[in-house]
C-alpha cells in the first residue's frame, strides 16, 4: 500500500460509482448529431453505419443478455439479426431515446419470434415499453455490483484502481507491488470470473 489516501473498501460498488461523473445517459448531445447519424446510415454510408454500431451494439447486447436471462449465444444471434434489420430499415430519427426505443422494439420482436419458433416460454413482459431503457443497465449494474462485492479483497483493489481511479497498469503494479504483466493477467482473470458470475445471476 502506498501513502496515498486509503481506498474505502467498505463502501459498496454502487456507492463508489456514484459521484464519479455524469452517467452517459445524462450527457446532452446536440440534436442534429442523431439526425445526421441516422440519415447517413439510411443513405448507406459505411462510416455512419460504423458509428451507429459503435454507439449501440454493446448497449443492445447488454439488453439482449437481460431479456434472454444470460443466454449469451442467443443474445449474439439476436444482436446480429437486430443490427442488420436496423440497418436495412433505418430512417431519420432525431433523438437517442427515439433510436433506442426503435432498436429495442426490433430486438424484442426478434426475441418473441425466436421464442415462438423454439416453443420457448414467452417472457412475462408484453411490450418492450414495459422494460424501460434504463432497466437493463440497472439490472446489469446490480448484478455487477453484487459480483464485485463477492470478489476477494486483493482482486477488488486491482479492479477499482484500474477502472474507477483510472490508474494505468503500471501504476496499479506499483501500488500493489506486482509486475505489470501480472496486473494485466489478473485483470483478465477477474473479468472472466465476473462475466461468468453475471451471466449466472441473470439466468
Amino acid at each position, binding site marked *: 500500500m502506498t501513502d496515498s489516501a486509503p481506498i474505502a473498501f467498505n463502501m459498496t460498488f454502487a456507492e463508489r*460509482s456514484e459521484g*464519479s461523473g455524469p*452517467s*452517459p445517459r445524462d450527457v446532452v448531445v446536440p440534436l442534429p448529431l442523431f439526425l445526421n447519424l441516422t440519415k447517413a*446510415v*439510411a*443513405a*448507406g*454510408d*459505411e462510416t*455512419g*453505419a*460504423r458509428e*451507429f*454500431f459503435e454507439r449501440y*451494439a*454493446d448497449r443492445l*447486447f*447488454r439488453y439482449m*443478455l437481460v431479456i434472454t436471462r444470460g443466454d449469451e449465444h442467443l443474445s*449474439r444471434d439476436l*444482436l*446480429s439479426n437486430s*443490427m*442488420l434489420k436496423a*440497418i*436495412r430499415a*433505418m430512417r431519420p430519427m432525431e433523438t437517442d431515446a427515439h433510436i433506442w426505443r426503435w432498436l429495442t422494439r426490433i430486438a424484442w420482436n426478434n426475441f418473441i419470434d425466436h421464442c415462438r419458433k423454439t416453443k420457448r416460454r414467452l417472457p412475462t413482459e408484453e411490450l418492450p415499453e414495459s422494460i424501460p431503457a434504463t432497466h437493463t*443497465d440497472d439490472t*446489469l*449494474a446490480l448484478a*455487477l455490483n453484487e459480483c464485485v462485492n463477492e470478489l476477494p479483497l486483493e482482486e477488488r483493489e486491482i*479492479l477499482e484502481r484500474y*477502472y*474507477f481511479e483510472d490508474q494505468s497498469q503500471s501504476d496499479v503494479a506499483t501500488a500493489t507491488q506486482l509486475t505489470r504483466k501480472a496486473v494485466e493477467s489478473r485483470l*483478465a482473470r477477474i*473479468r*472472466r470470473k*465476473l*462475466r461468468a458470475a*453475471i451471466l449466472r445471476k441473470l439466468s
Partner: protein
Amino acid sequence: MNPKLLNDILRESDYAAFREQLLLRVQAEARKRRTRATQWIAAAACLTLFAGALYLNRTQPQTLPATAVAATKVGPRSLIPVLEPIPLKPSQLLQTHSAANIAFSTDRQRHPRAISDNELLALFPRTPVGIAATRSGSKRLIFAEPAHARFFMSSD
C-alpha cells in the same frame, strides 16, 4: 455502473471476434443499401430521359434530315454512252384514215358453198325450227319461239 468495466467484462472470451465480424456485416449491409438506392436513382433517371426524349420528339416539327449531296466529276462527253434518235423509213410509217374513207367491196370471184335444207336445220339441234316455202318459191327459216328468232336472226 462503469461502462468500460462492463464492456471489458462482456468482451472476454470470443465476443471481440464476434463483434468485429458483425461490424463487417453491418457495413456490408450499408453498402448494399447504398447500391440499391443508386440503382433506383439510375433507373429513374433513365426513365425520365426516355420520357423527355419521347416528348421532345413528338413536339418538334418533322424535318427532313440534311443529306449530303454527292458531287461527282463528269468525264468528257465521248466517254459517256448517249442514245441518239434515228428517223424511220417511209415504209415503217403507218398512215391512218377516218372511218368514212374506208370502203368495202364484195369479191364476186369467190362462191360460198350452198347447204341443203337438212344441213340448215341441223345447225339448230335443240331449237324448234322449220323451213317454210313461200308462194314466190323462196324458202324461209321459221323459229317456233320469238326469242330464238331474235337471238339467231339480225333485225334488218
